[in-house]
């Protein structure tokens, strides 16, 4: 509870929670409330995007689809990618880092060289390469690719925590009581190493949303007609529709706002957990 009080003391952290809650609510409820189908093409409006009006508060896109409906359904897709890829990265990174830290010695050395190698790639280039070469754009695949290429930072964090934790008395006590190594790892080491992971998780959701947007811009992300903020931007930035400012503004501002929210939460958590004052 002391943690919660510390977190809530900062106004910026509250703003972060507010923004993210609002976006999550839109993602959950939006698709149930949408006034129009997000994928139904209107032949009457085909080819001439309509500016915002009472009937279409955020206008329509080049295929005559209602932008508000697409933005709300897109929120669900973008947040799903952001959260799910984060979970993949956290699970893989935590297990990997904890095993390396607990094993120590040559195993640790080898495992962390692999992390070094993966961190030497410009990750985004790698994500593009994997998506373009495999040519598979199902939501699950995109989540896996983003998650499996972004766990390395988490592995480093967890390994550092585990290295210091494994010398502590409570770990020796657990071992003396006859706990098997997997049990020590899962029940004693990992739960105590999670504080920095929670902060990293918050930043990761935002980073993943940006990665998906970048992929979609290159046509390698979530595929049409399913809307994601990324592929809505790709549509809007086609030279033919670029003068339709509302199509450029809506997904762009939603991404910026969401990222802002997650960063504020990450900062607030980092402050409340008493870790270093700046991650980036």
């Amino acid at each position, binding site marked *: 509870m002391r943690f919660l009080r510390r977190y809530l003391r900062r106004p910026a952290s509250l703003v972060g929670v507010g923004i993210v809650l609002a976006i999550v609510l839109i993602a959950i409820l939006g698709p149930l409330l949408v006034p129009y189908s997000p994928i139904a093409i209107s032949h009457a409006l085909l080819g001439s995007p309509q500016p915002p009006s009472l009937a279409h508060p955020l206008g329509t896109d080049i295929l005559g689809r209602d932008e508000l409906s697409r933005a709300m359904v897109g929120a669900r897709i973008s947040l799903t990618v952001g959260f799910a890829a984060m979970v993949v990265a956290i699970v893989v990174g935590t297990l990997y880092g904890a095993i390396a830290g607990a094993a120590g010695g040559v195993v640790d050395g080898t495992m962390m*060289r*692999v992390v*070094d*190698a*993966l*961190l*030497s*790639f*410009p*990750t*985004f*280039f*790698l994500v*593009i*390469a*994997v998506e*373009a*070469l*495999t*040519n598979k754009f199902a939501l699950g695949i995109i989540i896996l690719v983003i998650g499996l290429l972004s766990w390395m930072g988490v592995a480093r964090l967890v390994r550092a925590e585990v290295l210091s934790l494994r010398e502590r008395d409570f770990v020796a006590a657990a071992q003396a009581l006859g706990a098997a190594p997997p049990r020590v790892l899962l029940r004693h080491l990992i739960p105590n190493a999670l504080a920095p992971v929670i902060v990293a998780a918050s930043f990761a959701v*935002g980073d993943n949303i*940006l990665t998906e*947007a*970048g992929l979609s*811009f*290159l046509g390698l992300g979530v595929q049409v007609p399913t809307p994601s903020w*990324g592929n809505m*931007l790709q549509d809007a*930035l086609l030279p033919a529709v*670029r003068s339709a400012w509302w199509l*450029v503004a809506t997904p*762009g501002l939603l*991404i*910026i*706002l*969401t*990222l*802002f929210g997650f*960063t*504020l939460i990450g900062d607030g958590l980092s402050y409340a957990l008493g870790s*270093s*004052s*700046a991650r*980036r």
Partner: protein
Amino acid sequence: MEIGPLIAYIVRRLLGAIPLLLLISLISYGLMGLAPGGPTAILSQQARSLTPAARHAYEVALGLDQPWYVQYFYWLKEVVLHGNLGNSFVDQRPVVARIAEKLPITVELLTLALVLTLIVAIPIGIRAAVKRDSWFDNISTALALIGYGVPIFWLGILLIDLFAMHLRLLPASGINSVGREHDPLDLLRHLILPAATLAIVSIAGWLRYQRASMIDVLGEPYVQTARAKGLPERVVLYRHALRNALLPMITLLGLQLPGLVGGAYFIEYIFSIPGMGYLGINAIFQRDYPTVMGITMLSALMVILGNLLADVLYGAVDPRIRYD
């Protein structure tokens, strides 16, 4: 500083980079080997007349009928023995030559973006730390955070629309105006928008790091000593605190480099700048494996060398660091 231990340190680090580069090449090659389709799939889409027999002959000629680990072995042998990264599948020119002509422009873009980032982030970060929790601090931090979340391609295209299309102040793409191919000023004019785009999304990281570092230093006992002996605040801040607050920024260079390189590649693609990223992303789409491998390896090498440079620089400015 002793030069002997420094050289030994650099050599040790470079030797340590060799297994790392091997691992990177193995991972990349494996990823490409596992990809379905392969280069000839694209070829048969483009040329419908390509018979299965001709396609097979082509694959044999390129060694693509072998399993990926055999191909990897041949690739590695050529690299180690002859420094040869193979020939492009697209235009049959040596990959080394293709990359060599693109590398300078990428390095120029990266340098310009980094300079722009630093001249904004450092003074603002310092001032935000000194005026901690003031409106200046809050607003600059909030703006930096907003900048961090901007999709880079979105910002790039908005800046092109504003400065190139509407105001007609700067060129929209490419690196040269017609007839001014060797004019450095013209090059600079072409690089301002892409570099500024990259800088805007990078500023947040540097600004926040600089601010945190300055706040840490301002809490040090020697700063209190300087104040206690009656030095003017200006001297305390800029003579005593600033130098030590700048040190950790060198470490950040190493941490930020992969992201910066990746961002530069994306920017090149958006602004049609013929650098490594433009080459690389197009090579990915064309499944030009030798070129993709070359770019991947060179990118990793740039990141590794950047980290080494950061560590050496850190030692050069901080006498407490020793290399033995």
